[in-house]
């Protein structure tokens, strides 16, 4: 047994699960050109994410000659940061290229990429230098005669790892104030480092800023100003004063500093009883004073409440509205309301307090009437007769007649879906198959172009799918990533029509059906086909619609409860 455990221990590739380096370089890079527009696009593949300080951005170092280093080339920094094993792209516009190169047609374009995490003051090594021979076409023929190469910060303004001197705290003994000297010692096993650059002498940087940090003068260089070190130091000092943590705002937001939450201060009301000394020891006297106090306490409550007349008007108005609703919906009478009010009165008001009873009764009746009025909106279920359905279907067919799916506009899509909503998807069983197919295509079109829809249009799409408005966007995202959801949307209308007799048939049911069929076809793949990219503990389930969550709960919760019950029964039997 021990040997087996030892073998298992040795088999588990522990180093693979460990962090590689603080900030890993990009796992891949490529270059594409648009020969018509004269642009260059650099692709950057994010690392596997096993690192303490994943890149907040990438700096692309590039040049027309080989041997790229951080000091002998131009550079740009991307606005995007790390995404695990994902390609992201930075595009040089034609104007950008004209700025950096006098001419590019037929020339070599060399580049290498560095990953930066400014918050943690960490950068990776440069990736292996890549070279690409640019297309010798008109779009890259700049032929600039009065061009001069950009220099200084115009040529390259990357994030630079700071190696600032230690500033001793003047007033506090907080060790966190000291800033560590960070050196670029990161290495990687996946990307070979660039060839060693020729020895260059870097001129001393101009000291331009003199700032007092915690009472001590601190000098900064141009690079410090450019890369934001000055700003970050100011943030650190401010946060030291505010929270006692020598950290940047980004670190504070990330939760690195343990900030105790301020508890709301409780109001302490001290009641001075003036009657104490006046009261005699006589019991009758005490009773009288107590009764007086009660009346005095109750009267102001009566004054603060809504005046009686106003309440009457409101109630009458509401009752009128209610009466109209009642005719349509045939709800039970208000007798139930009165019963509830009575029950509440007994619970809330102990004793015979007539004045408060009246007030509370009016308030409760008001609330209750409002609640009763809200109910009918949800209760109303529009049931169409066969003739009405036939008319509506004819209207849908009429709208669809002029539609060509390949050229359909958003307005047309919404018009069709609105018509379908009037009768309900499941009633499309009375329409021809062609109509159903067009409606299906229209629904797919709406999901594909959900970003272009207004809120009202999203509501229309949500209604046809029988999901909440917020869920439409989730479905649109899921369609791109999840084949099952994509297939479910594709077959939604067809399946809804087939299940016309099923009540409350929604997209969630279609998803479950599709998954069940996929499971029967290939049971193992359902469990093995995993892709955890972008999944964190916090966002599990965020990509599910509310409807799907509710339907899943209906299954998962009974399963867990049944298991617990069976375990309990087993333990009970054994004992």
């Amino acid at each position, binding site marked *: 047994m021990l040997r087996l455990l030892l073998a298992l221990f040795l088999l588990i590739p522990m180093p693979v699960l460990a962090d590689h380096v603080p900030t890993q370089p990009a796992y891949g890079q490529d270059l594409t050109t648009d020969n018509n527009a004269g642009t260059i696009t650099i692709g950057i593949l994010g690392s596997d994410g096993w690192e303490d300080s994943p890149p907040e951005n990438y700096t692309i170092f590039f040049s027309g000659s080989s041997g790229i280093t951080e000091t002998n080339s131009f550079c740009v920094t991307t606005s995007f940061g790390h995404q695990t094993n994902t390609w992201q792209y930075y595009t040089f516009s034609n104007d950008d290229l004209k700025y950096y190169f006098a001419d590019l047609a037929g020339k070599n374009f060399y580049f290498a990429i560095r990953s930066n995490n400014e918050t943690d003051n960490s950068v990776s090594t440069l990736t292996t230098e890549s070279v690409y021979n640019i297309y010798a076409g008109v779009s890259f023929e700049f032929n600039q005669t009065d061009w001069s190469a950009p220099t200084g910060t115009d040529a390259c303004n990357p994030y630079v790892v700071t190696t600032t001197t230690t500033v001793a705290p003047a007033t506090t003994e907080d060790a966190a104030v000291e800033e560590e000297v960070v050196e670029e010692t990161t290495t990687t096993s996946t990307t070979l480092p660039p060839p060693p650059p020729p020895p260059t002498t870097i001129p001393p940087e101009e000291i331009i800023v003199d700032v007092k940090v915690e009472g001590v003068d601190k000098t900064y260089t141009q690079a410090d100003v450019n890369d934001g070190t000055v700003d970050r130091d100011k943030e650190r000092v401010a946060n030291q004063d505010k929270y006692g943590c020598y950290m940047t705002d980004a670190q504070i937001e990330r939760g690195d500093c343990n900030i105790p939450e301020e508890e709301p201060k409780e109001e302490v009301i001290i009641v001075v009883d003036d009657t104490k000394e006046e009261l005699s020891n006589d019991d009758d006297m005490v009773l009288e004073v107590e009764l007086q106090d009660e009346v005095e306490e109750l009267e102001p409550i009566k004054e603060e409440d809504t005046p009686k007349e106003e309440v009457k008007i409101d109630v009458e108005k509401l009752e009128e509205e209610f009466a109209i609703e009642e005719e349509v919906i045939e709800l039970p009478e208000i007798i139930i309301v009165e019963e509830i009010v009575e029950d509440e009165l007994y619970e809330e008001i102990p004793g015979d307090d007539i004045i408060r009873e009246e007030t509370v009764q009016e308030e409760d009746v008001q609330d209750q009437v409002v609640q009763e009025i809200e109910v009918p909106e949800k209760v109303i279920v529009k049931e169409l007769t066969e003739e009405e359905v036939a008319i509506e279907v004819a209207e849908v067919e009429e709208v669809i007649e002029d539609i060509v799916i390949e050229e359909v506009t958003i307005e047309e899509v919404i018009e069709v879906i609105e018509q379908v909503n009037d009768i309900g998807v499941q009633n499309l069983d009375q329409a021809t198959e062609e109509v159903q197919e067009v409606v299906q295509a229209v629904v797919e079109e709406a999901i594909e172009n959900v970003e272009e829809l207004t809120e009202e249009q999203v509501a229309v799409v949500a209604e046809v799918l029988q999901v909440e408005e917020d869920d439409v966007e989730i479905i649109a995202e899921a369609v791109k990533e999840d084949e*099952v*959801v994509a297939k479910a949307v594709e077959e939604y209308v067809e399946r809804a029509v087939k299940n016309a007799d099923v009540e409350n048939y929604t997209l969630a049911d279609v998803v479950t059906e599709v*998954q069940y069929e996929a499971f029967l076809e290939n049971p193992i793949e*359902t469990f093995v086909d*995993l892709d*955890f990219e972008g999944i964190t503990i916090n*966002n*599990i389930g965020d990509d599910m619609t509310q409807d799907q969550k509710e339907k899943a709960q209906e299954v998962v919760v009974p*399963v867990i409860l*049944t298991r617990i019950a069976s375990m309990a029964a087993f333990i009970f039997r054994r004992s």
Partner: protein
Amino acid sequence: MIKKLWAWFVEAIKETLNLSWTLVGLIIATLTLTGSARQITGLATIITLGIWLITIKFRK
């Protein structure tokens, strides 16, 4: 060694059969979910079943 493995294999089948209803429920649950929740549930089911079967003797 082979005998031991065979005994464990038989025992594992018995245990899995004991868990039939639970597994049916979990499979249905997995099929009801979508996206990340489905993947996590599916993987958790398989891993837990694996651990359950590996630790048969330990639990007894």
